[in-house]
């Protein structure tokens, strides 16, 4: 069992917080110098990968690239990051296009100095001290951090889940609702529970929603 002294001595890992402004940065990318603020007005999936020229990352990059047109239709951009150099990134995406036939259309940050990886808590020393783990940060059109997903080095991400998350958050913003477990686009959504007795009585009498009980009502949108 871990000793208390070891826990106290472990350096604190800085993580950004949901619902707060996403930490701003300027980055060298495969598309030139980009600032996070350049994405204002559109959603952004900022994701990290452990290293270029590795097989799991290659499958993920091909998956992200295939999703890019759909994400653009959802007003959502993509940007990758690892602590490799810009030349490594360029060589890798050219390799993917030439050998695997998939053009990588989104920018990739070369975070050789680990500034952005540190800012976003992308390095988990228990997994690796020299690579970023598989992080996903969903940042909304007002630059608020809305969701974070962390995957270990060994496990490639589920692209459908990432898209589902963006769709769910956009539905939440547009209609002021929540989404239930395993929600899929087109499925019923959760109406926020009433917070007064009067509203609870109104809610159960509301023909527009289907209630299992006063606090648990769903509707179609």
């Amino acid at each position, binding site marked *: 069992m871990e000793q208390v002294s070891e826990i106290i001595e472990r350096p604190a890992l800085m993580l950004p917080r949901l619902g707060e402004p996403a930490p701003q940065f300027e980055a060298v990318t495969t*598309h*030139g*110098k*980009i*600032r996070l*603020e*350049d*994405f204002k007005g*559109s959603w952004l999936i900022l994701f990290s990968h452990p290293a270029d020229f590795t097989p799991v990352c290659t499958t993920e990059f091909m998956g992200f690239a295939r999703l890019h047109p759909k994400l653009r239709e959802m007003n959502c*951009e993509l940007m990758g990051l690892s602590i490799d150099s810009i030349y490594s990134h360029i060589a890798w995406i050219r390799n993917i296009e030439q050998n695997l036939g998939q053009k990588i259309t989104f920018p990739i940050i070369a975070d050789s100095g680990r500034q952005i990886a540190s800012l976003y808590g992308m390095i988990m020393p228990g997994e690796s001290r020299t690579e970023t783990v598989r992080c996903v940060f969903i940042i909304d059109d007002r630059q608020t951090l809305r969701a974070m997903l962390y995957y270990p080095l060994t496990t490639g991400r589920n692209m459908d889940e990432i898209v589902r998350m963006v769709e769910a958050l956009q539905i939440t913003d547009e209609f002021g609702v929540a989404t239930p477990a395993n929600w899929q686009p087109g499925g019923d959504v959760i109406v926020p529970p009433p917070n007064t007795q009067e509203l609870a009585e109104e809610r159960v009498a509301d023909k527009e929603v289907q209630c299992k009980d006063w606090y648990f009502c769903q509707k179609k949108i």
Partner: protein
Amino acid sequence: MGCINPDGTVTEAARELLRLLEGKPLTDRDVAARTLSGQPLYMIRSRLRELREAGLIEEEAGRFRITEKGRERVFLARASL
């Protein structure tokens, strides 16, 4: 995909932006809506910033316009064709 090549000339993408800004001043969204190359808004913002830092365009109240130095670059690019 930056705007300025190592030899000081401007890239094709940057020339497109400079040509658009030869007319009346435009916002970043105006520029994005007018580009034929379909550059996304975040790239337009990045490139406008680079062009501004190079003195080829200037910004006033969120609208961008080409400078004399920018016009010279466009002229030189046309002359070299």
